[in-house]
Each structure stands twice: as C-alpha cells, then as structure tokens.
C-alpha cells in the first residue's frame, strides 16, 4: 500500500521479488545494492539460513526519483522461495504495491516456476489483492545457462493470464536485465498509483 507522507514529502512503495527457490531473487537485490550510489540506497538486510538460502526476507530500500517535489522511495523485498516457507512468504506480501516474478529458465525447474506462480496467486487471493490489477513483471533469469527453455515456452507457461505483462531476460548474477526489470515495475507502480496523462505510452502491455 503506497504511503504518501505530505509532511516529509515522501512516497513509499513496497515491491516484492517472488519466485521459486534459487531462482535469483536475492541476486537481483545484491546487484542493485552493489550498483547504486550510497545516496540512493539504504542498508541491505538478509535474513538467511546458514546455507545462504533466504529464511524470511531480504530487504533493500532505494530512492528513485522526485515526482512534483515528492521523493519516491521503493522498499524492495524478496520472499523465501522454498515451498515449505509459505507462511513467511505470505507475511512479506502484506501491503505490496508491485511484484517481480523471478523465474528460473532451466528446463528442470519449469515445474517449480509454475507451482510458485500458483502459490503467488493463492497468497494474493488470501489478502484479497487482485493480481490482474497489481503492477507486475516477469523476469526469466539464468539465460546464460545451457539447459534453458525458449522464452516463448516460458511465456506460455507463466504469462498467460488475461493481462499479459512485460517480461525481461536476465542473468542476475552479472546484472544483466536487473535494472530493466526494476525500472519497468517501478514505473508501472507510479502510473498505477497516480495515473498517466491520456495519449501517453502505458507500460502495462
């Protein structure tokens, strides 16, 4: 839920990276944290288990842009991808304004992608959030690996709701596609909240 603070001239948004375990959600945040100057980012927090797998969430606050005198800030979260952490995954979704679904492009991970997307739909329903109205994009990660499914196939598996959303190919560990994904979803979140002048290009595909 966007929070507009007129006293501080700040607009806060919450963006959540969702997807199956080891798809690269944390790698996205790590690249963003590494790339941004200190002036436009806060501390990154990772609540991870001993094996570096996300246990609760990763958190990174970033400042994007100034809109009519207000600073737009985006709080980026990841969820734990492993199936049995659904309770904590659901908690992180609370108050979400925009979503990035990070899919693992490898053939042998297609089933996990589909299951995770279904799980997202289910958790959104439990909060009475409507995925058809929520700004979200899909990132097909790990495009540098050998055993990956073609984009058309992944689109058929994951991007087949009534509204087709923008997608990005990525190699998050190298930073490829990371900012394309984030800039697009943050733009969609801003337009979703405040609207955009008629005749302007809308990036909702």
């Amino acid at each position, binding site marked *: 839920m966007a929070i*507009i603070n007129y006293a501080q001239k700040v607009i806060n948004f*919450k963006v959540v990276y969702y997807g199956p375990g080891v798809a690269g959600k944390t790698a996205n945040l790590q690249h963003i944290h590494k790339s941004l100057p200190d002036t436009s980012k806060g501390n990154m927090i990772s609540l991870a288990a001993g094996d570096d797998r996300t246990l609760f969430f990763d958190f990174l606050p970033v400042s*994007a842009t100034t809109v009519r005198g207000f600073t737009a800030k985006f709080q980026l979260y990841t969820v734990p991808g492993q199936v049995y952490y659904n309770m904590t995954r659901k908690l992180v979704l609370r108050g979400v304004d925009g979503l990035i679904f990070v899919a693992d492009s490898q053939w042998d991970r297609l089933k996990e992608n589909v299951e995770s997307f279904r799980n997202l739909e289910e958790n959104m329903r439990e909060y009475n959030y409507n995925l058809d109205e929520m700004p979200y994009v899909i990132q097909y990660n790990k495009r540098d690996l050998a055993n990956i499914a073609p984009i058309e196939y992944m689109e058929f598996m994951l991007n087949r709701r009534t509204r087709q959303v923008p997608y990005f190919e990525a190699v998050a560990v190298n930073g*490829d596609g990371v900012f394309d994904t984030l800039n697009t979803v943050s733009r969609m979140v801003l337009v979703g909240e405040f609207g955009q002048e008629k005749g302007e290009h809308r990036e909702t595909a």
Partner: protein
Amino acid sequence: MAIHESDAEQINAVLTTFLGESGATEALLIDRSGQLLAMTGANRALDTVSISALAAGAFSSTGALAQLLGETEFTVLFHQGNKESMHVSTVDDQAILLAIFGERTTVGMVRLFAKEAATAIGQILAAARAKPTNRGALSEPLTAEESRTSLGEPKKP
C-alpha cells in the same frame, strides 16, 4: 494511505507525550507492511528504515505464531537488551508502535503508556484514512517523463 501535515502534527504530539510519560527514548509508528509512518525521540543516527522493516516482520511472524496457538494475535512483543530494550505493540490492524527505552524506565511503564498512546493514534489514523484524499500536487496524472524512474542504468550488452 496519505499522512497530511495536520495528521503528522497530531501523531507527533501523541508520541511526544508518550515519550515524556513512559521514559522511552524513541517512538516509531510503523505500518504493518514495514514502512515508517512517524517518529519522535532522541536525535541520534538510527537506521529507522531497517528497524521498521525488521520490526514489522518480527511482529507479523509473532502474529502467525499466535494463530498457531489459536490466539488472534500477541499484542505485545518485547526484546530485552543489556542497556536498551524494545517494546512493540498493536495500534490497530494496520499499524504498530515501537518504543526504544533504556535503564531509566521499566517495561511496565512503557507498556502502560504505549496502550494509551495506541488508542489516541488509532483514532488519528482512522480519521486520516476516512478523509477524502486530497492529493494536492499529486492529483493530476503523471506525464510520461514524470513516471520514468531510473534507479540505475541498464547494463549495456
């Protein structure tokens, strides 16, 4: 939701009274999604953005624990440190109140006055949510240029 200047002033007044009565050093009003709504207290460099995200996470997981026991929620979460402690309590179903306090007061005092402050803040927030949204400068749709966020340069191939 929107917090206007008048809401912020009222909330800050309640938080300032709370600090005076309870002896706590800082009070943070936090949305349950993890965002800081207001803060009053000692002027030191605290990472309030991280504190808010972590406290909301801890409080929500405590709530999930409560549900596993058949409770609606645990209304208070208390962390005791050597010199400083933290008390988190429910304001309403969308906000929580976090108090940081040292050795010059007790958890009992903080708990007592946090309850009073929560009631007052709950009313301010309810009124703020019920107000028609006057967005002022933000009421007109954005131009394409205004909605173009560039958080970082896309990597060139």
